[in-house]
């Protein structure tokens, strides 16, 4: 990294994070560091805790954090309510975006953007200015303008919902985007559109964490670092080639190794 600040400190620093849902511990001492401008991929089998991790970072209260820390840009994420984390620049792309009937897509986006602008001390955008602001960004995900007047995700297909997530990311311009299985349930064309959108939003002032099962997304958005998660921890980290290896060998060996405790040493995030 070129910026001096960030030579000392990654944009996101997670250490020893533990969280449980009910009596079951899901995150078991997870550590991860993401530098500004980097794209990381977190891969791993079902049930390894990937989505829980994404949710915990964003402040979803379904899981209870019992130990560890998560620092974004020097701020203690775990101490903030979800909306403050959003205003601090954290964006979660949802695996299953909700529908909110009757609340216009455009209206929702503008309300969200203005809430964040206000928090940053910037002027709020009126409907006309916002329309201008959102136009180019819609092209990014090939979103038809008619979608904007419909209810938020109301009656959208799976692919449309995911494109809408990327559009929201484009509008909100987060410092850190965590995209939870943004590639799931997409046909080949939708995957291309979503992936190209994510790739286009890559830049030196933004970090992105892609949570995914498959390496196909990574053909479009080539990650700087690939992590493998198993049993609530990052057990292996490497470069792009790690994803390809996983694609070939599957996750079974990771699970087995994790159970044996073979990854105890390599569980420290970025290489």
């Amino acid at each position: 990294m070129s910026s001096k600040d960030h030579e000392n400190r990654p944009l996101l620093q997670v250490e020893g994070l533990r969280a449980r849902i009910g009596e079951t511990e899901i995150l078991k001492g997870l550590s991860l560091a993401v530098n500004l401008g980097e794209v990381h991929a977190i891969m791993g089998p079902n049930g390894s805790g990937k989505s829980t991790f994404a949710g915990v970072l964003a402040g979803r209260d379904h899981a209870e954090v019992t130990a560890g820390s998560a620092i974004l840009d020097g701020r203690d994420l775990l101490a903030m309510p979800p909306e403050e984390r959003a205003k601090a620049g954290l964006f979660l792309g949802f695996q299953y975006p909700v529908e909110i009937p009757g609340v216009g897509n455009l209206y929702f986006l503008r309300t969200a953007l203005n809430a964040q602008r206000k928090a940053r001390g910037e002027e709020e955008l009126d409907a006309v200015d916002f329309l201008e602001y959102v136009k180019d960004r819609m092209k990014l995900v090939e979103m038809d303008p008619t979608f904007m007047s419909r209810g938020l995700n109301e009656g959208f297909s799976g692919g449309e919902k995911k494109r809408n997530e990327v559009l929201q990311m484009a509008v909100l311009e987060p410092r850190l985007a965590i995209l939870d299985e943004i590639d799931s349930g997409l046909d080949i064309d939708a995957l291309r559109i979503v992936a190209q959108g994510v790739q286009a939003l890559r830049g030196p002032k933004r970090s992105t964490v892609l949570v995914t099962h498959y390496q196909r997304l990574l053909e479009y958005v080539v990650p700087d670092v690939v992590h493998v998660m198993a049993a609530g921890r990052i057990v292996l980290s490497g470069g792009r080639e790690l994803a390809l290896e996983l694609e070939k060998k599957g996750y079974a060996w990771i699970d087995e190794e994790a159970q044996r405790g073979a990854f105890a040493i390599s569980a420290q995030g970025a290489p």
Partner: protein
Amino acid sequence: MTDALRELTEQKYKYGFVTEIDEDRIPKGLTEDIVRLISHKKGEPQFLLDFRLKAFRHWLTIEEPRWANVRYSPIDYQDIVYYSAPKPKKKLASMDEVDPELRAAFKKLGIPLEEQARLANVAVDAVFDSVSVATTFKKKLADLGVIFCSFSEAVREHPELVERYLGSVVPYSDNYFATLNSAVFSDGSFAYVPKGIRCPMELSTYFRINAADTGQFERTLLVADEGAHVSYLEGCTAPVRDKNQLHAAVVELVALDGAEIKYSTVQNWYPGDAEGRGGIYNFVTKRGKAMRRSKISWTQVETGSAITWKYPSCILQGDESVGEFYSVALTNHRQQADTGTKMIHIGKNTRSTIISKGISAGRGQNSYRGQVKILKGAENARNYSQCDSLLIGDKCGAHTFPYIEVRNPTAKVEHEATTSKISEDQLFYCRQRGIKEEDAVSMIVNGFARQVLKELPMEFAVEAQKLLGMSLEGSVG
């Protein structure tokens, strides 16, 4: 329920203040003498006194209805003052001469009368307690032959119209509360739009209950002659009171051949405190009669009152007449609402649409009660009803009582109903985008109500949106 949600649903009523104005009052209680006294004070013609007396005598023979899904302690009808009018300090020639205290009260309610009238192009017939104080835009309307005035003035200036249409849609014997109203109504609004005239502005009345322990018995009569068009707005707020106040209004609409009436209400009377003390009992009878090829459309946003008992209805008498009912009813704290509509299809090819959105929060109880009746001669009648309920929290209730009666085999009647809750997932989604919880609730509730809100005239829609949000602060946006 989360803290923010709780805080939001526990907000206090914002319009709690009492205006000190001298009042002309008569003693408590209801007797034939009181009815005569009211009529005398107002200098009414014989036909009106007769109407009142018939109603009063009938009222003595009937019982208060108990079928509604609401609970309240018995009303002592002898403990109510049936007439109260602000004493004018002098005769008013223009808006500027309106009692400054009165104008201040309107300001507090966010209704700068003259500004609103001028800017929004709205003629406001302001009803303060029971007597109209100021009417604007009269001249412009008069040029077109449109009559818009207080009920009392209509009785003085246009007795033939009042005599012809009063009780023609809601007869004096209609129901307990309408009968009571017919006996003691003090004032209200009257509008007549002549043949073929399209009323150039929204006619608007702001009601406000002010004197303590004074029942409010408004009477509204609206007549659209053949081919006429009119849009009427009714908005209400009331100050905080400890004792329950009874409100039993009657609204009659007459749409002659080819006429169109749009009647919109935003009701925000005092709902009582969080424990259900105080608040308005709102027992209202609203009905319209639609003649050939005419259309009557009711839109209501009901957020206030401790108890709401109200079924704005359409009698689709003429062939090809159309009736519509769009409703948002919100109950919070311990509010109870039993509201809906009746669509009575008499003419051939008559159509009706019912869209009802009930929102329940706190310990609120919300019932939709609707009747669709297709009579024998109503060939090819159509009805579509949609009743949606939204629940906020786990201590409130939503109920739906649809009654469908079809006596003609060519009829087509559809009824859809849904119940949903604001989910944690929806709230988290909004918050993850930076929107705080109470704004998210307000947004979701307004989205839920959108189908109805978009039926309101522009200036009213904005007010209604804010009100939904505020009422859930006490719930919508």
